[in-house]
């Protein structure tokens, strides 16, 4: 640690440049990770919303509806099904249109259709379930949200690709800049390195202070970038709360581990911090190793 501080004191501009580029890259990495996690979380949330609503003809016998429901449940493709009878549908209608008495007067429970709200276990089962329902004579209409989900899946996939591309770019940019800065530092220590060589210092001995500095630089840049991201997250928390109104929680399933990401969860933040710090330390060490290998 003392060597690290001395090195900063001796080469303040180079150290500031290394820190800035690492901070910038890690800040963007944090931002990308958070954005991706939120997007994935919203997608996971939407997948749990009713994905197919089947409206039956108003006079359909309830037993017939239950028979279709049971068949769907026994197919193993359905996560859950909610039945809404005509009375409940009317209650819902009344709630939705309580400010419009004219609409309320025109509608009675008899004309509203009973319905089944179906949640599929996987998005790929949706077309099959919809197809099955359409074939039933008592089913009047099938509302299928496949398009919305497909669009979200596409968007998430694009975001993943953009993140990966950007991440690779950040890695290459950071590595190039850090190699250049380390080259400057080596040039500034040319005489000291020459003395060390004459005294019989091994390559690893000469390289070690550069690598130690790179390690601490990675750690400190991660901590700083994380602190800024956390401050921004908490600053925008009220806005996010209102934006995500109605969504009680967002979570991600990673390696069979259900990770809560919203409301703000310290386990998720800690994992993100560890992953990003590891990236910061590795990229810093890798760049310095490359530079010392090439220029020492």
């Amino acid at each position, binding site marked *: 640690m003392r060597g690290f501080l001395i090195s900063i004191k001796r080469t303040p501009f180079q150290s500031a440049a290394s820190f800035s580029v690492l901070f910038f890259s890690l800040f963007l990495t944090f931002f990308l990770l958070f954005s991706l996690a939120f997007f994935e979380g919203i997608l996971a949330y939407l997948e749990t919303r009713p994905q197919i609503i089947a409206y039956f003809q108003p006079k359909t016998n309830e037993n017939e509806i239950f028979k279709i429901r049971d068949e769907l449940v026994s197919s193993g493709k359905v996560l859950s099904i909610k039945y809404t009878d005509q009375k409940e549908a009317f209650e819902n209608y009344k709630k939705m249109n309580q400010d419009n008495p004219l609409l309320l007067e025109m509608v009675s429970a008899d004309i509203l259709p009973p319905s089944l709200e179906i949640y599929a276990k996987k998005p790929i089962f949706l077309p099959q379930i919809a197809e099955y329902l359409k074939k039933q004579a008592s089913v009047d209409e099938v509302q299928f949200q496949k398009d919305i989900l497909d669009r979200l899946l596409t968007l998430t996939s694009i975001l993943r690709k953009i993140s990966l591309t950007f991440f690779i770019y950040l890695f290459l940019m950071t590595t190039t800049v850090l190699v250049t800065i380390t080259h400057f530092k080596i040039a500034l220590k040319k*005489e000291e390195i*020459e*003395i*060390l060589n*004459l*005294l*019989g*210092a091994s390559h690893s*001995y000469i390289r070690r202070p550069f690598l130690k500095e790179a390690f601490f630089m990675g750690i400190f840049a991660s901590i700083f970038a994380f602190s800024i991201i956390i401050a921004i997250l908490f600053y925008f928390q009220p806005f996010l709360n209102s934006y995500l109104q109605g969504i009680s929680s967002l979570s991600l399933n990673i390696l069979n581990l259900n990770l809560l990401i919203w409301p703000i969860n310290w386990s998720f933040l800690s994992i993100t911090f560890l992953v990003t710090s590891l990236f910061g330390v590795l990229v810093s060490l890798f760049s310095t190793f490359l530079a010392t290998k090439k220029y020492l």
Partner: protein
Amino acid sequence: MIIFENVTKKFPLGNVALENVSFSVEEGEFVFLVGPSGAGKTTILKLILRELLPTSGSIFVDEMDIADKNFSKILTLRRNLGVVFQDFKIIYDKNVFENVALSLQVLEKYSFLEIKEKVKEALSIVGLADKEKVFPIQLSAGELQRVAIARAIVGERKIILADEPTGNLDPQTSWEIMKIFKKIEKEKTIIFATHNVDIVNSFQRRVLVLKNGKIVKDLRKGKYEF
């Protein structure tokens, strides 16, 4: 301990720094390399240090062929050598203790306490025992050269190569530096490049006289004659 066999060193542009040079130096010997500028004194020292490789011929230092490309052998070679330069080659942002300690730290085998003890011993030999925490900027040229000598002699470095160590010093300081070399000559093999006639003549040690890259005289207990 040091053997040069028909060593020639030519530089890429064609100038010949050494031509067919042969000599040997025994353990514990004190040898002056003398001659005018460009005679090849520094080239001999650089060849021993393996900063340069000979164009032809062989050089053995402590039975190791310096042409050996094995890096660990090169490290072993350099760890046996202490070097003193005319321009001191001191690290200015390290204090006296740290500059001398560096010579032991690079060996990566001594504890801090051992280093402390050995550095104090070396500093007392060169008369800087009370200046271990002083930074080079606060030292005179003579004191800087003493730091360089302490760095060269500390620990187990058996061979001391001195490349005109009094070249930048006034006569009085030069003699003080030479007293240090006299003090350490019993324990080390010393090769001392200089063109200071008075020093060579007063020491009465072996003198290798170089001229145009050739050894023209090898005088036991000799004097420097133009």
